[in-house]
């Protein structure tokens, strides 16, 4: 029997959740025995080459490209998991939610401390190739159907391991108190 195939991505996230995947320590060797990776920053496969069983999503959607990638994952994966606070509730990027997008753009390109006095031409990036900015940051499950949610910032490595192992082996998932945390 062929091994279950896993894909992962980071949308509007910080890659911390991916670091936490690596934090499963030596169990990573066991993971490689259990599953095969397809599109993922872990193996640097850029596009889906086949249908996958599990898609793991880090980060929420703050621009049109995030939405595009997320929909692509939904299309190519049987099961989707929202991994971490940003995928689940927008996280740090969603601190801009509630503030008009115009003000956010101004802060980023005109008035913010990192551009102060630099962008004298007052250029706002608008090349067609750039992703378009959404009115707010969306949790992934508002865009596509998500099957499982693993909270944490980042989610504890044990939680990720327990969840993936349970999905792959079909065993009941263990959720000890200490692994479910929102920070």
């Amino acid at each position, binding site marked *: 029997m062929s091994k279950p195939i896993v894909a992962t991505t980071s949308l509007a996230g910080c890659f911390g959740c991916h670091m936490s995947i690596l934090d499963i320590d030596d169990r990573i060797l066991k993971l490689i025995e259990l599953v095969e990776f397809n599109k993922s920053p872990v193996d640097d496969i850029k596009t889906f080459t086949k249908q996958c069983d599990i898609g793991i999503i880090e980060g929420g959607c703050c621009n*049109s490209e995030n*939405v595009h990638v997320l929909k692509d994952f939904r299309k190519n994966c049987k099961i989707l998991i929202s991994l971490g606070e940003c995928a689940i509730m927008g996280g740090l990027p969603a601190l801009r939610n509630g503030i*008009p*997008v*115009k003000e956010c*753009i101004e802060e980023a390109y005109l008035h913010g401390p990192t551009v102060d006095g630099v962008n004298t031409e007052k250029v*706002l*990036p*608008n*090349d*067609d190739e750039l992703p*378009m*900015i*959404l*009115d*707010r940051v*969306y949790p992934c499950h*508002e*865009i*596509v*159907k998500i099957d499982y949610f693993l909270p944490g910032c980042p989610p504890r490595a044990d939680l990720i391991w327990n969840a993936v192992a349970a999905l792959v082996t079909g065993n009941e998932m263990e959720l000890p108190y200490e692994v479910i945390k929102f920070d």
Partner: protein
Amino acid sequence: MKNTLIEIAARYGKDEARLMDILMDAQQALGYISKEAMEVIANELKISAADVEQTVSFYHFFARSPRGKYTIYLNNSVTSVMFGYQEIAEAFVKETGCQFGNTTSDGLIGLYHTACIGMSDQEPAAIINDKVFTRLTPSKVKEIVAGIKAGKKVEDLSVETGDGINAHPLVKSMVKNNIMRKGEVIFADYTLGTSLKKVAGMGTQDVINEVKNSNLRGRGGAGFPAGMKWEFCSKAEDTTRYVICNADEGEPGTFKDRVLLTEKAAQVFEGMAIGGYAVGAKLGILYLRAEYRYLKAYLESVLEEMRKNNLLGKGITGKAGFDFDIRIQFGAGAYVCGEESALIESAEGHRGEPRNRPPFPVTKGYLMKPTIVNNVETFCAVTRIIEKGSAWYTTLGTQSSAGTKVLSISGDCEKPGVYEIQWGMSIKEMLEMVGAKDTMAVQVAGPSGVCLNPAQFDRKIAFEDLPTGGSMIVIGKFRNLIRDVVLNFMEFFVEESCGSCVPCRSLNVVLKQRIEKIIAGNGTMEDLSELERLSKMLSMSTRCGLGQTSSNPILTTLQNFREQYEGLVRKDTDYISTFDMAASVKESCEYVDRKPNIH
């Protein structure tokens, strides 16, 4: 400003419990209540400015910023929507050049929405500076706004006057009574003072017994036996006691208390005095909703007249020690204040947040003293029960529902208005009485009541079957029930929740959003079961009657009109995203000057 406020505070003895009156007067004098004004008031009353702000910000007729020299509040309740709200709203926007929620730049006109103003039989209606304008049409709107721009006084904006007391010089209102049926109790002829003279010769317990024997149950809707309430209060430890008449009439679709206070005010006040005698109270408060401020001068004249005739004040009817007087306490726009403990909080100058029970008002009510709170119609009936006796009263109505009930009937019928019927009438008989044809549904007891389908029209209006405070809205077959009725009701409850308990504050929002999702065609079968589950959860866990009943529009239509929901939801999927890429990138693309490329 400062001196004006100091003077106003002094007018009410710098009493923090009179904060509502102080704020009302301050707003009348200054147009709105600024931060600075709140600080002055706080200083005078020796409370914190945050305390003043918490009261001000609770009531939607209190303004924290200017709302125009003429402030227009257009009613957006369900009957207003049924009879042309949209057209009238557009006319106001067009004529004033002002969007809803705003004031014109010259500060002349403010345009706002408000919930049901008790005019459901003459909608669409609006309040402009305490004056009510009914049966609005686009041409009337044009005339009114032109009058405002010409600097006319509010009272001169319309020359129409209504019937009966509405034409009284102290009222001069275009509101109509529309009394379509007079019954044996409330609208029968009565000689003022008869009952007060009678009680003066009775023992207090005899009065209570008479009310108990009449089986009179609260006419506000909850139906608690009035005599029992009075007895509890009369036996409470504390001997400083109060009588409150609940005239907050906020349930959309009800307007009968407005008519009773217009035509039978003295009879209501007499009932309050009888209550005062029975429970041993010296002060009565008429808690009147701000929407009825146009009746203020008239009602005060009635009270004054009663004092002159020795029917109020000291030694009523000449009996030494029978002292009772009434003051009018205005609300400032909050449906929840119809709940008796929220009403008491409001009358004490606080936010209208319902209290936790126990204790009940009969032991700890107004100012934490024993208090009876009864509806306008209840007091009105008491006066007649004392006059004619409880035995007479119980011959009317049914076994478990004695007497008559004043109904406020509106919606799709030929003869909307006020009807005094005997309990026990069926919905079918009622529909015939009001000339309703092709009826899809009847909303009994307002949004917090039930929505009946035609198969249930044999049911009877009575506490044992369909209890009601009197609101009856007839909904014709051509209406869009979920969009125009259910959603409107949920918007109402979201707006009117006091917000102090989680389920009511938050679940009503969730339920409203779910209804919107279903109407937009994005609902699933799962949404329907979720609606039902959450509605039941809300009703079970919330603190007061508002939350316990606010999901009724959903629960009762899900039960009685399920096919309408099923016609709207998608059955082929269990997940629908409402995300709209084009809408969500619109603003950012416009701002950086690029064309959205969506594929």
